[in-house]
């Protein structure tokens, strides 16, 4: 088959790392918008150079106030983005939030540090074309999971996102002896499947349940026509995602304003 014919087939369209990164970032921001839809008084402000998720109320205030800054802006662009981000949070009376900066954007890192922000945490952005999934469809006992059960499972506030979540958040759970012991969330946008909040109860770790749920989401997303997938991985989970086929897109460094 010639390359042109191959590329007409969705499953073999090649994606550059830059494409994958951008698609993952857009899905992430869209997932924040879904959270905001379900929360009182919340919104995601798409401002020049930054998307700021502003959650001024309730249980969400301590969890979802995050802003993703664009990469490789010029001097003026960085200043404008940081000013806009700070203004958005100040207008909502939110003093604690996390500014997400890509680790390879040295100029932006220097700017946020100069403004008194301190490094707090990091997650690794990872992404992949779904044609690269290396695991077979897993044979596990799984069920769709209600938002309220997800909250209970991981000791989250019962009123988070109104206690109902959002219909666009696909939650599934792996079961052992009939009990839900691991969960994973998926959210799709523009044929990219973001997989978030993969977690397993302590007594059931090291059984591959998180990996199996991730693979399940990937296969189902591909069946629905998605072409790529993205995750934000903690350091402990990076090896698992690499094994599944995810590529490293670099870390998001989370900076918080100093007290």
């Amino acid at each position, binding site marked *: 088959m010639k390359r042109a014919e191959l590329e007409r087939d969705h499953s073999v369209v090649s994606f550059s790392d830059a494409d994958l990164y951008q698609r993952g970032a857009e899905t992430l921001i869209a997932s924040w918008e879904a959270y905001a839809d379900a929360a009182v008084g919340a919104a995601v402000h798409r401002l020049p150079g930054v998307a700021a998720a502003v959650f001024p109320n309730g*249980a969400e*205030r*301590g*969890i979802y106030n995050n802003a993703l800054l664009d990469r490789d802006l010029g001097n003026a662009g960085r200043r404008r983005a940081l000013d806009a981000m700070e203004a958005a949070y100040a207008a909502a009376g939110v003093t*604690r939030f996390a500014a997400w900066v890509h680790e390879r954007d040295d100029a932006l890192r220097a700017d946020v540090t100069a403004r008194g922000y301190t490094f*707090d*945490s*990091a*997650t690794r952005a990872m992404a992949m074309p779904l044609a690269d999934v290396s695991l077979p469809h897993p044979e596990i006992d799984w069920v769709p999971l209600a938002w309220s059960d997800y909250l209970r499972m*991981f*000791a*989250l*506030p019962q009123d*988070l996102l109104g206690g109902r979540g959002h219909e666009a958040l696909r939650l599934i759970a792996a079961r052992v002896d009939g009990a839900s012991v691991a969960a994973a969330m998926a959210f799709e946008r523009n044929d990219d499947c973001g997989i978030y*909040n993969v*977690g397993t109860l*302590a007594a059931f770790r090291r059984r591959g349940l998180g990996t199996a749920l991730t693979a399940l989401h990937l296969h189902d997303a591909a069946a629905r026509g998605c072409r790529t997938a993205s995750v934000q991985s*903690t*350091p*402990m989970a990076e090896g698992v995602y690499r094994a599944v086929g995810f590529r490293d897109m670099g870390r998001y460094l*989370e900076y918080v304003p100093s007290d």
Partner: protein
Amino acid sequence: MAAAATGIPDSELVELARDGSQEAFEALVLRHGDRLHATLRSFGLTTTEADDVAQETLLRAWRGLAAFEGRSGFFTWVYRIGFNEAQRRLARRPPADQESDEALERVADSRPATHAAAEHRELARALDHALRRLAPELRAPVLLRDVEGRSTSEAAAILDLHPAALKSRLHRGRMALREQLAAYLT
């Protein structure tokens, strides 16, 4: 062995200890014992309490070496055991207004040299009281994040919490602290 352990990485000492070498474990204790004790003190334990909890922590570590998977450093693993032991000990304490003699002596002995120093000490004491009044599930995130300076993912791993649950409890803990310390913050 303990003296000869200088330069041997923790991972090798852990392997030897797993194979039953008490000397290797003693070398690990010598290497990390003081740091563990200082950490326990920073959680608000008295010297005597920290002595007891450090001993209990190291005993648990020795018994649990087989379960240590090496996904974190040895000290991080011991830290997690120690942190949870310290929280258990703090939860058994009498109510916050009945300070231990040692804590009172610490305050009395540290006479302020200046007015500013006195204010600082008063605030520190108020903060200590406020922390102790927090429910344990809120105090632990505040201690790890704001006193110890751990990252969200580290604190969540230590407490075995979902990162969002950690953030939620941290927020509630900070709000409760702010309320208790309102008189000092205005």
